[in-house]
């Protein structure tokens, strides 16, 4: 039994790495989503092209290949990254490309009349975006952002391939040391599920909080 608690410690260490990757990757993804999503809606054509190129490239290629580029190819170009940095970069850029389309769609879903009210009140484009459009669009984005974050959490498992000791990596270690497959993998199955559940719970709560008052019900 002692032996198992040691192995559990190992898996929990890995769980921490997975959490770290998820948080940092999501933060980068969020920034990229807004940059590229709003970039695609820009009046300036070069910004639109840049954003489109980013989105299409990172959606159109495998996260696995992107990760290998970040970790093995960028050093050859003079950008050496730690496994964690490479993992965060690949995950953030990949999921950010998907989430950028969420940002764009949500911004477009806000009615034309809200933009017209902005004009009539003489707000400039940025003020209108910042105070009127984005707060309303953000509520529309949230459920899909929650999805994206869970996707990102599950995609963190690929970083074990660049020797980053995340949860999946540690489960492999335990498996090779004990010869037991069921216990380590059942453990991480539950841990992934628990993390994903925590994520969706958090997003739902945020959603409820932000939507308060919008439907006429004062909670």
């Amino acid at each position, binding site marked *: 039994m002692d032996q198992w608690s040691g192995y559990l410690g190992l898996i929990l260490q890995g769980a921490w790495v997975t959490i770290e990757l998820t948080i940092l990757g999501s933060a980068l993804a969020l920034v990229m989503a807004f940059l590229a999503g709003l970039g695609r809606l820009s009046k300036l054509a070069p910004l639109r092209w840049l954003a489109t190129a980013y989105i299409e490239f990172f959606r159109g290629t495998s996260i696995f290949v992107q990760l290998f580029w970040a970790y093995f190819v960028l050093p050859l170009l003079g950008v050496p990254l730690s496994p964690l940095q490479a993992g965060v970069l690949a995950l953030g850029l990949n999921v950010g490309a998907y989430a950028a389309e969420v940002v764009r769609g949500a911004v477009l879903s806000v009615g034309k*009349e809200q933009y017209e009210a902005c004009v009539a009140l003489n707000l400039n484009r940025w*003020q209108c975006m910042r105070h009127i459009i984005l707060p309303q669009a953000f509520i529309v984005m949230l459920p899909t952002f929650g999805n994206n974050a869970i996707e990102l959490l599950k995609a963190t498992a690929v970083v074990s391939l660049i020797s980053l000791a995340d949860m999946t990596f540690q489960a492999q270690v335990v498996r090779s040391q004990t010869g037991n497959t069921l216990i380590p993998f059942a453990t991480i199955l539950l841990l992934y599920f628990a993390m994903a559940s925590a994520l969706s719970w958090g997003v739902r709560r945020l959603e409820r909080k932000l939507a308060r008052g*919008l439907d*006429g019900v004062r909670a």
Partner: protein
Amino acid sequence: MVLAGEIGVVQPIIKVDRISKNFGAFQCLNELSFEVAPGEKIALIGPSGSGKTTILRILMTLETINSGHIEVDGDQLYHVERNGQLVAADEAHLHRMRQKIGMVFQLFNLFPHKSVLDNVTLAPILTKKMKRADAERRGMELLDMVGMADKAKAMPAQLSGGQKQRVAIARALALSPKIMLFDEVTSALDPELVEEVLNVMRKLAAETDMTMLLVTHEMSFANDFADRILFFDGGRIVEEGKPGEIFRHPKQERTQAFLKKIIAAGQRI
């Protein structure tokens, strides 16, 4: 059909000069011209599709124009002079010009994520750099004027249509525009809520010297409220004059036919 004589020596605050506007193949405004004197209350009436809402939206810079010129308070609205020639104005110019004009919409267009008071104070704080405390004091005065002070903390979704529209009026007034545009502001309201909005507008007309243009289907209100009626049809002004003349003695056949239809539909003038 501009009755320049009626305006006399006062410089018009709005001068619409041969404005044309097409939506695809549909010519919405056809060389439309008219003038408005400062402080004048004008009602724009006519069948739907006649261009009355479009000219209001053009004055608010919500549409572009195909040709013609508009002067507002002595400056060109859509043009600036460069090397003695009028060229299309940039956003900065439009921004300056919009300070003179406010608009109230048929569907209120309140910001659903902001409280009633925040709806009213947002633009003064952002565009006039007003201090929040000052903006809120002024906002409460305006809400009081439209009878909505007790709902200052409510969200728009908690209000009735009439209440929303009164908040929207306060919101537009918060920027102290010289000209207010009202686009069918009672058309989306339940009949029993129309009067509370019209009362606010009557009060506004009585207490301020703002220039007001309103598009309406409420003929009796237009009759009481307006100094002058413009009857639109086919993107032009077919007939204009004092409410008494237009409603009791319309000269043009199309005006007569329109008013006959309105009366047949049950409205009293």
